[in-house]
C-alpha cells in the first residue's frame, strides 16, 4: 500500500483535474444540450435540421477521434488552444449531443396541452419553451441526465490520451515508476467509483426534490 501513500499528491492532482474537467464539461454539455434540444423542437425548419445534424455528427464519431482531431487538427488551421481547454470544449460538445437527446425526450414528455395553453395565453414560442415546457421537461429527465453526468466523468479519462494529466494519466505515471499496476489502477478505479457514487446520490436527491406527480 506504500505505493499509494507515497504518491498521494499525484493521485490528488489527478483527481482534482478529473473533477474540474467533469464539472466544466457538464456545465458546457447542459448548455449545448438545452440549446440543441430547443432547436430540434423549434418551428424553424433550418434550426431543426441544424440541431439534428449536430446530434448525428457528434454522436456518430468516437470521442477519442474528436479529441485527437481537435488537438492535432485545429493547430493546422491556426487554432491553437491549450490541451485542457481543448479537452473541456470537445467533451462538452460531445456530451452535449447526448444531453440534447435526453432533454428532447423530456420536452416530448410534457403534454401537448401545456404548450398549446402557453401559446393561447399569448406567450411567444421562446417564452413558452423557457417558462412552461423546459422547466417541466428538464425535471422529468433528471435521472437520464445523471447517467450522462457519470458518462461524462468516465469519458474525461480520454483526455489522458491527449496529454491532460487527469486521474488515469496520473495513475499511469505512478505505475511507470512503481510497476504495480493492480494496486494503482484499483485505487484509480475506486476514486472514479466514489465520484460517480456522489453523482448518483446528488441525482437521486434532485429527482426526489423536483419530481412532478402526474
Amino acid at each position, binding site marked *: 500500500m506504500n505505493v499509494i501513500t507515497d504518491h498521494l499528491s499525484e493521485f490528488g492532482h489527478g483527481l482534482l483535474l478529473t473533477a474540474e474537467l467533469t464539472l466544466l464539461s457538464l456545465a458546457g454539455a447542459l448548455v449545448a444540450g438545452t440549446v440543441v434540444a430547443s432547436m*430540434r*423542437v423549434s418551428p424553424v425548419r433550418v434550426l*431543426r*435540421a441544424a440541431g*439534428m*445534424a449536430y446530434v*448525428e*455528427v457528434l454522436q*456518430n*464519431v468516437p470521442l477519442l*477521434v474528436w479529441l*485527437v482531431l481537435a*488537438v*492535432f487538427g485545429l*493547430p*493546422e488551421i491556426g487554432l*491553437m488552444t491549450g*490541451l485542457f481547454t481543448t479537452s473541456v470544449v470537445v467533451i462538452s460538445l460531445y456530451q452535449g449531443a447526448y444531453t440534447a437527446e435526453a432533454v428532447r425526450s423530456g*420536452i*416530448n414528455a410534457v403534454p*401537448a396541452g401545456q*404548450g398549446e395553453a402557453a401559446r393561447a395565453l399569448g406567450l411567444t414560442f421562446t417564452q413558452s419553451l423557457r417558462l412552461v415546457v423546459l422547466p417541466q421537461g428538464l425535471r422529468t429527465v433528471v435521472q437520464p441526465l445523471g447517467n450522462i453526468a457519470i458518462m461524462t466523468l468516465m469519458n474525461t479519462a480520454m483526455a*489522458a*490520451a*491527449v*496529454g491532460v*494529466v487527469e486521474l488515469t*494519466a496520473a495513475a*499511469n*505515471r505512478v*505505475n*511507470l*515508476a*512503481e*510497476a*504495480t*499496476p*493492480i494496486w494503482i*489502477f484499483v485505487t484509480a478505479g475506486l476514486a472514479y467509483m466514489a465520484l460517480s457514487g456522489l453523482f448518483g446520490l446528488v441525482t437521486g436527491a434532485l429527482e426526489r426534490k423536483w419530481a412532478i406527480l402526474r
Partner: protein
Amino acid sequence: MVRTSAGKRWALPVAVTALSVAGLAACSSGGDSGSAVPGSGGGKQDDLVAAAPVAANLPAGSTMEKIKKRGELIVGGSLDAPLLSQQNPASKKVEGLDADFGRLLAKYITGKPNVKIVNSASETREALLSNGTVDVVFQTYSITPERAKQVAFAGPYYSSGLVITTKKDKTGIATPADLKGKTVIAGANTPAIPAIKKAAPDAKIVTFGSDPECVQALKQGRGDAYVQDEAVLLATAKQDPTIKIQGKPFTSDPYGIGLKHGDAQMKQFVNDWLKQIQASGLWAKVWKNSIGTVVEGDAPQPPAIGSAPGSE
C-alpha cells in the same frame, strides 16, 4: 412536436455517415507507405533464423520444455515500434530488433522460429508474465530494480538511451539541463518522464500516447523539446527533416527480456542463449538488420549479461 416523414428522417443520418466515412478514409490513406519505414528489409530475417542455434537439451519439467511441447513461443510485444517490433502492413510480418530476437529465442527452444506476439503495454507486462499469458516479454523493457521485484530479467540484450529532439531551427536545447523551465513532450508510459523530472525538475511534461502524436505536437509547438528513446527517434528523424536530434543519449537504458518472477532456471537458460549469439556474431547481425539500417558504422558492443541493476 416535430414530425418529419420517415424518408427525410433517414436521409440526413445516412448522408452524414457517408460523409464522415469518406473523410476518415481520406485521412488514413497515405499512412500505409510501409516501404518508407527503415528497417523493413524482410528477406534478411530468414538468413538470421537459418544461422540461429538450437538448444541441445532442455531440462525436464522446465518452462522451456512446456514451450517446446506447445510448439510456439508466446511473446509479449508491440506491433507499432519502428526498428524494434513493427508489423509490416503488406507482408504482415513483424520486423525489428525485438521481433528478430523473439524469433531466434523461439528457434533456440523449439527448433522452429514460431512466435505468437501478444500485444502488451507498459501497464500490463508484469501481469501478463505473472499469470502466464506470455512466456517472455520483448518490448523495449527497461530493467529497473522496482520492476525486478515482479519479473525476472534476462539480459540486458541491448542498451539504448534517451535523446532530446527539437524542431530543426531550434537552438539552445542540447543537454538535459537546458530543459529547465521548458515544456517537454514525452510518450505516455515511457521512462522519459522520470528522466526529465530528474534532469530538470521544473520542466513541464506533456504526454501523448504514441510517437507520431508526440512528433506532431512538437512540430505544432506544443512543447520546446521531445524526449524519447534513441532507437525510436532515429527512425523518425530520418523520415522527417523538420526535426532534429540534439546531442547524444543522456541516459543508459538497458533492455531486458522479461520472464516470470522466480524462474531462475529459464533466466539462466536465456542468458546462456544470449551469450551464445553474442559470441557467434549473430547479435551484431540482428542489430545490422534493424537499428543498423539507420545508424552508420558497425554494431556496438553488446551490454554485459547481468550488468544492469535488477538483472543480476
